[in-house]
C-alpha cells in the first residue's frame, strides 16, 4: 500500500459517467495515434527525425502540434461548461458540481499553460532564428529540454483524467480553498506539479531566446533593425525569465503547505492567503503580456507584408512594446482591488493599469497607419489582424473600466470579467497565433494553406467569439458571478443560450482548422512554395527555401536594413549566392525526451506521494544533466558539397522563376 503512496484502485474513474467518458476519450486520443504509428512502423523515423531533434524548426512544429491538441481539449471543456450553463436554471444540469469545477479549472489551466504558451513558443521557435539570420537558437539542446518539460506538464494534466482527479480550485488555485484542509485530494497537486514542471521549461525558453536574440543576430542587424516579431519575442522572453520564478515559488510554497503541513497560506497559524494572491499575480499579470506580445509581433509582420509597406512608426512600436513589458510588472494588484486595500493603494494601481492602455493604443494606431496608403490583400492572416483590431479595442475598453477600482468592485468575479479576459486572449492572443500559422505555415512545410478554408476559420471564430462573449458582458451586468454551476435567476438564461450557440460556431471554426490542414496536405503539390517567398515578404525568414535546410541559410545573410529582405529585393541584391563553407550543427539527442519523461514521473510520484519513485526520478534528472554536461558535444557536419546539393532544388526554382539574374553565381 505504502509502496504506491496514495494511489489505489479508487483513483480509477469508475465513480461517474462523466469521469469515465473523460478517461476513455483521453485513452483513445493517446492510443489511436500510438497504434497508427506502430501499424505504419513509423516509430524509428519519429524518434530519429522529430522527438530527438534539436532543430528549432522541428521543435517549433512539435510545440504547435501540442498546442493544437490542447486547444481541442480546452475547447471540449469550454463547450461542456457552455452547455451546462445554458440549461442549469433551477436544476443540476448534466454536470455534477465536482465535474463542473474540475472542468473550469482544467480549461483555464490548459488554455493558458498548454495551449497558448506552446503555441507562441512554437511560432517563436520556428521563426525568430530565421528572422535574425541565425543557424539555430543559442542553446539547441536546452530548447529540446524545454519542449519535453512542457509536454510532461501537459501529460500530467491529461493523466489526471484517467488516474485520480484534477483540481477544482480554478486556474488561479487560490488558497485556503486549494489548501489540504479544503481540497484534500490529489487534484491541486496535479495542478501544482503540472505548473512547476512546465514552468521550468518556459523559464528555460525565455532565457534561451534572450540569449539567441542578443547574441546570434545576422551581421548588421542592430537592435533597431530587428523585425518587430523579434522585438516582441525579446520582451516576452524577458518577461518569462523574470515572472516565472514567482509562479514556481508560489506553487512550491502551496505544495509545501499541502505535503509538509506548512502554513504559508492556510487560515491558521499565521498563514495568509493574501501573500499567495500577490505572488501569483506578480507572475500572472506579466503572463498575459507574455501571451499577447508575440501576437502583437505577428500582427505587425502580417500588416506590413499584406499592406506592402514598412510598418508605420517602427520606433514607436518598439518603445510601446518595451513600455508595456516594463509596466506589466507594476499593476498586479488590480486583480484584487476588492481585498480591502486603502483607497490610495487602489488608486495608484488603477492608474498604473490604465497607463498601459496608452502604448497599446499607440500600437493599434500604428497598425492602422500601416494599412493607410498601402496596397492591401486580404489573406486570412490579415483578416485575423483586422478582426483583432476591431475586437480588441472593445476588450481594451472593458479593461480600462475594470481598472477603475469602484467599477471593479461591481464587476469583479462576474462574467463581465470572464468576457473581458477572453476578449483579450482570443482576439488578442489566439487570433495572432492563428494568423501566424496561416502566414508562416509554408515556411515550415513548403506548401501554403488553403486560403478559402482560412477565411472560413476566421469567420467562424469571429462570429463565434462575438456570440459567445458579448452576452457574457451583459449577463455580468445582470450580476452573474463566474464559475457558477447552476443558478436561479431566469433573466440570465437567454444570454447563456446565445453564448452556447456562439461556442457551437467556435466548434465549427475549430473543425475548420483541421479541415484546412487536411485539404492543404492533400493539395500540397499544387500549392508548393518553391521560391521560399510566397507573400512577397519583407524579413529574412523568406530569404531561404521552404522548408529551410537544417542550417537555415547556406551563407548567413546581411541584416543591415530594416525589412532587410525587402530592401535586397528592391536593390536587386537578393539571391546572390556565394560558395558555402562547411557548417557544424549539434547532433540530435534523446536526452531532452529522457529529461521530460523523468520530470513527468517526478511530478506524478509527488502527486501520489510515491516517495521512492520521486527519488528515482530526481536522481535520473541529476544524472542526465551531469552526463550531458560532462560529455563532449556530438555534432553533425555539413560539407560544402552536401550544402550545394541541398540548396540545388531551391536555386533551380528561383532561376526558373526568373529571380536570379544573368551571371549571378548559382
Amino acid at each position, binding site marked *: 500500500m505504502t509502496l504506491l503512496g496514495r494511489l489505489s484502485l479508487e483513483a480509477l474513474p469508475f465513480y461517474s459517467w462523466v469521469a469515465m467518458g473523460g478517461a476513455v476519450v483521453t485513452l483513445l486520443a493517446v492510443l489511436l495515434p500510438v497504434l497508427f504509428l506502430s501499424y505504419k512502423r513509423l516509430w524509428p523515423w519519429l524518434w530519429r527525425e522529430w522527438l530527438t531533434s534539436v532543430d528549432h524548426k522541428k521543435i517549433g512544429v512539435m510545440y504547435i502540434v501540442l498546442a493544437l491538441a490542447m486547444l481541442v481539449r480546452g475547447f471540449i471543456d469550454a463547450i461542456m461548461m457552455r452547455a451546462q450553463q445554458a440549461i442549469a436554471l433551477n436544476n443540476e444540469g448534466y454536470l455534477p458540481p465536482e465535474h463542473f469545477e474540475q472542468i473550469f479549472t482544467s480549461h483555464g489551466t490548459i488554455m493558458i499553460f498548454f495551449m497558448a504558451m506552446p503555441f507562441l513558443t512554437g511560432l517563436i521557435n520556428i521563426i525568430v532564428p530565421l528572422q535574425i539570420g541565425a543557424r539555430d537558437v543559442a542553446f539547441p539542446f536546452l530548447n529540446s529540454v524545454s519542449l519535453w518539460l512542457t509536454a510532461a506538464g501537459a501529460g500530467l494534466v491529461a493523466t489526471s483524467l484517467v488516474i485520480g482527479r484534477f483540481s*477544482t480550485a480554478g486556474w488561479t488555485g487560490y488558497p485556503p*480553498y486549494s489548501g489540504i484542509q479544503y481540497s484534500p485530494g490529489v487534484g491541486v497537486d496535479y495542478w501544482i506539479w503540472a505548473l512547476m514542471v512546465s514552468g521550468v521549461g518556459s523559464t528555460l525558453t525565455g532565457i534561451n531566446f534572450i540569449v539567441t536574440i542578443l547574441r546570434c543576430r545576422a551581421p548588421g542587424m542592430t537592435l533597431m533593425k530587428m523585425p518587430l516579431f523579434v522585438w516582441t519575442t525579446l520582451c516576452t522572453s524577458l518577461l518569462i525569465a523574470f515572472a516565472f520564478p514567482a509562479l514556481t515559488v508560489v506553487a512550491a510554497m502551496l505544495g509545501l503547505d499541502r505535503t509538509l503541513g506548512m502554513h504559508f497560506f492556510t*487560515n*491558521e497559524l*499565521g498563514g495568509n*492567503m493574501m501573500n499567495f494572491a500577490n505572488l501569483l499575480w506578480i507572475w500572472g499579470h506579466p503572463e498575459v503580456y507574455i501571451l499577447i506580445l508575440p501576437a502583437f509581433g505577428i500582427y505587425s509582420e502580417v500588416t506590413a507584408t499584406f499592406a506592402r*509597406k*514598412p510598418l*508605420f*512608426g517602427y520606433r*514607436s512600436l518598439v518603445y510601446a512594446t518595451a513600455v508595456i513589458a516594463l509596466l506589466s510588472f507594476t499593476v498586479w494588484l488590480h486583480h484584487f482591488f*476588492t*481585498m*480591502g486595500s486603502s*483607497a*490610495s493603494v487602489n*488608486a495608484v494601481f*488603477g*492608474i498604473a493599469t*490604465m497607463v498601459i*492602455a*496608452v502604448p*497599446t493604443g499607440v500600437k493599434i*494606431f500604428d497598425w492602422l*497607419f500601416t*494599412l*493607410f*496608403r498601402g496596397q*492591401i*490583400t*486580404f489573406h486570412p492572416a490579415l483578416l485575423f489582424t*483586422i*478582426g483583432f483590431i*476591431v475586437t480588441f*479595442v472593445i476588450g481594451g475598453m472593458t479593461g*480600462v473600466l475594470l481598472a*477603475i477600482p*469602484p*467599477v471593479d*468592485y*461591481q464587476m*469583479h468575479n*462576474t462574467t463581465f470579467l470572464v468576457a473581458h479576459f477572453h476578449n483579450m486572449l482570443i482576439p488578442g492572443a489566439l487570433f495572432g497565433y492563428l494568423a501566424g500559422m496561416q502566414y508562416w505555415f509554408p515556411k515550415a512545410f513548403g506548401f501554403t494553406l488553403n486560403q*478559402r478554408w482560412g*477565411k472560413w476559420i476566421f469567420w467562424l471564430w*469571429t462570429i463565434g467569439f462575438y456570440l459567445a462573449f*458579448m452576452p457574457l458582458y*451583459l449577463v455580468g*451586468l*445582470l*450580476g452573474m*458571478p*463566474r*464559475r*457558477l454551476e*447552476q443558478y436561479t*435567476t431566469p*433573466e440570465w438564461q437567454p*444570454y447563456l443560450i*446565445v453564448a452556447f450557440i456562439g461556442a457551437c460556431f467556435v466548434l465549427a471554426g475549430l473543425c475548420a482548422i483541421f479541415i484546412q490542414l487536411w485539404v492543404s496536405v492533400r493539395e500540397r503539390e499544387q500549392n508548393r512554395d518553391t521560391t521560399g517567398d510566397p507573400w512577397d515578404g519583407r524579413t529574412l525568414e523568406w530569404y531561404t527555401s521552404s522548408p529551410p535546410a537544417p542550417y537555415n541559410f547556406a551563407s548567413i545573410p546581411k541584416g543591415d536594413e530594416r525589412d532587410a529582405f525587402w530592401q535586397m529585393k528592391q536593390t536587386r541584391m537578393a539571391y546572390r549566392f556565394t560558395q558555402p563553407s562547411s557548417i557544424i550543427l549539434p547532433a540530435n539527442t534523446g536526452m531532452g525526451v529522457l529529461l521530460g519523461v523523468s520530470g513527468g514521473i517526478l511530478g506524478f510520484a509527488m502527486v501520489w506521494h510515491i516517495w521512492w519513485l520521486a527519488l528515482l526520478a530526481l536522481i535520473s534528472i541529476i544524472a542526465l544533466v551531469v552526463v550531458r554536461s560532462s560529455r563532449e558535444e556530438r555534432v553533425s557536419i555539413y560539407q560544402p558539397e552536401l550544402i550545394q546539393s541541398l540548396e540545388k532544388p531551391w536555386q533551380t526554382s528561383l532561376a526558373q522563376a526568373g529571380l536570379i539574374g544573368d551571371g549571378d553565381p548559382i
Partner: protein
Amino acid sequence: MARLFIRSLTSAPLLHLYGLMMLCGLVVLSGCSLQSSPLLYPKGPVASTERELMLFAIAIMLTVLIPVWGLTLWCCRRYRKGGKGEYRPDWCSSTLVECGVWGGPLIIILLIGYLVVVYTFRLDPYKPLTVHSTDTTPFPVQAVALDWKWLFIYPELGIATVNELVFPQSRPLALEITSDTVMTSFMIPALGGQIYAMAGMTTHLNLIADQPGTFTGRNTQFSGTGFPQMYFSAKALPDKAFEDWLGTVRNASSMLNSAHYHQLARPNKSYAPVEYFSSVDTDLFNHILARYSAPSTALANGAL
C-alpha cells in the same frame, strides 16, 4: 452555388458584414431583460455613482473606439488592392501623426485617471456613509461567510439571522465581514460593490438603500460545491416594517450560542433556509475572528 456564396462572403465588402453582425448581436441581446440589471438600475447612491462613473468612462473611450472602427473600415475599403487609394510604398513615418497617436490615448487616460483618483476615494467601501435629514447613525451588521451560507449578527439588537439581511432603510448599513471558511466575496450588486471575506480578518463595507426593497446578495468568489447556493436576500425596510420584523425575530425560539454555532457552521448540501435567532453571544464575531488570528491563540485553542 456554394462557391459563389463563399466568395460573396469573403470578398471586399466583408467589413460591412462585420459591422452589421456586431450591431445585430447587440440589438438582439439588449432586447433581453437588461432592466433587471442591478448594476444598470441600482437602488442606492453608491451603486448609482458607480454606474455613472462606468457610463462616463465608456463615453470617453468611445471617442477612441469609434475613430478606430471608422479608420479600419475606411482603410480596408480605400487601400485594398485595386481600391481608390494611392499606394505609397515608402510612407512610414510622420511626426504629426506620431504625436497624435501618443497624445490622444494619453489625454484620455489622464482624464480617466483623474476620475479614478476622485472616485476611488469617494467610493471607498471603508468610508462611513451618512444620510441627510434622518437618523444618520449607521446600522451595524456583522456578516460571517460559512460553507455555504451567510450568517448575519446584529450587535445593536443582539439577534442573528441566516441568509437574510434586514436593515432599516433610513439608516446606512455598516458591515463588518469575515469568513469562517475559505475566502469569499460579499456583494449586494443593487447597492454597491463587493469586498472579500477572509478568515481571521475583518473587512468593511458601507452601503445605503435609496428606497425600501428586497435585493439579492451573494458570494461571488468560488468557494466549493455549495457556491451556487451562497446567496441571500437583503431587505431594506421602512421603520415600521422593520420594527415588526424585529418582533418576529425576537419571538423566534432558537438562540445562537457557541454549540449551536458549530452546528450551523457545518457545510450544507442544498440552499440553507432563512433562520432567525432571538439572541446571540455578543462576542461571537470576535470569537470567530480569534480562532484564526495569532498563532499563539490558535495554539492555546488546541488547533494543532
